[in-house]
């Protein structure tokens, strides 16, 4: 606005000069953004990878190495180590390079928003051996107990996830029951006061396991059972 009142009839600049000015600014901006992107990309990837590995190693105890896989109805494909963003399941291996289990994502609607979890599945004892919450915005003090309550987390040390004889679905659908009412190994002992969220986690595991485990068993042959461990490998 300034300057308008000083000159009686402000000279209209030619549109070409406007375009040039905007283009120049946009190009400088683009340059700066690309520069920042290039500079931070390795760090960002490292951070993402660390966060993921932390989650994978939490749900697959004894694991120290992770491999990325992509699983769908067409098969199980091994992906390169750095393309974890495209993967949807992760295989864990221990120090000796022996396969320990598979980490799989699941999600369901909680009290506030979608709750995203990662859980570890062990072929050996056909059960879920670990669970961690990847993303949730549940009520602090109530719903977020699912991330911290030791008794609740103890449910996932060995949660039965056997498949039926035809390997087409879970033999017993995983379900969350009231605290203290757990009688079967495929039941999750819920948290009183966090009923909705603990049920959501049960549903996330049931849906994801019911869909992914049959596929995983079907394409088990594409899975590397052992991997060479080079010294100094992270």
């Amino acid at each position, binding site marked *: 606005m*300034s*300057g308008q009142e*000083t000159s009686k009839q*402000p000279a209209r*600049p030619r549109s070409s*000069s*406007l375009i040039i*000015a*905007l283009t120049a*600014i*946009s190009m*400088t*901006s683009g340059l*700066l*953004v690309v520069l*920042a*992107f290039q*500079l*931070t990309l390795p*760090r*960002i990837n490292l*951070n*993402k990878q660390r*966060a993921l590995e932390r989650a994978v190693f939490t749900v697959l105890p004894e694991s120290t190495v992770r491999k990325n896989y992509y699983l769908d109805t067409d098969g199980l494909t091994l992906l390169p180590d750095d393309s974890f963003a495209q993967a949807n399941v992760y295989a864990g291996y221990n120090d000796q390079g022996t396969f320990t289990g598979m980490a799989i994502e699941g999600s369901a609607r909680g009290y506030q928003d979608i709750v995203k979890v990662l859980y570890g599945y062990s072929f050996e004892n056909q059960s879920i051996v670990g669970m961690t919450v990847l*993303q949730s915005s549940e*009520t*602090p*003090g*109530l719903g977020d107990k699912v991330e911290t309550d030791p008794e609740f987390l103890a449910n996932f040390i060995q949660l039965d996830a056997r498949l039926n004889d035809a390997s087409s679905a879970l033999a017993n659908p995983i379900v969350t029951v009231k605290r203290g009412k757990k009688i079967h190994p495929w039941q999750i002992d819920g948290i009183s006061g966090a009923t909705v969220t603990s049920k959501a986690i049960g549903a996330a595991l049931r849906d994801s396991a019911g869909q992914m485990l049959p596929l995983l068993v079907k394409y088990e042959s594409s899975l590397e059972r052992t991997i060479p461990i080079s010294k100094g490998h992270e």
Partner: protein
Amino acid sequence: MVNDPRLPEPLSWDTFQQGLWKENPVFVMLLGLCPVLAVTNNAMNALAMGLATTFVLICSGVLVSLLRKVIPKQVRIASYIIIIATFVTIVDYAIQAISLDLYKALGAFIQLIVVNCIILGRAEAYASKNTIVNASVNALGMGVGFTFALLCLGGVREVFGSGSLFGFSLFAPSFQPWSIFVLPPGGFFVLAFWLFLFSVIKERRKAAAQLKQEAGNAS
């Protein structure tokens, strides 16, 4: 302001101090309330948001001031937005590189700094009319004022809502946290409380100044 706003201001303590108290973006102008309410559920998030906004304020202020004679008036808003968006994107990458957890906690509010009216307001009302030094000093003042306000909210909300400050526990583990303070309604309550407190202080000061003046006149 009695000064002709078209003339560049001389650099003074006021250039910096303006944003801290007299024209504090949150407590006086009530600008940028979206991040003020949304990301102040703990002190760390508040600090990070304050610093990110300050960085964008200073950088965009400097660039706008530098280009103030080059940018044609007709496209100035578009230009400012591009400049601001650039720095916001840079901050966005920087925070992802520093800590993913922090990035997740701040969520979309990093990107939303672009539409924070404090920054566009400063670019239009100050940086585009003043020298680089003035613009950066003023932006720094505004940024510090904004960060201060965010910390005021974030501190109270974290102490009551989680019983900690910057993640350090303040009370015994049996402390009952008041979850409402980390939930959205708590943001409104705490903001209202600070606004109330500051207006009480301001009124008191005004009354005291008036009293002093009257006493001066009488003698």
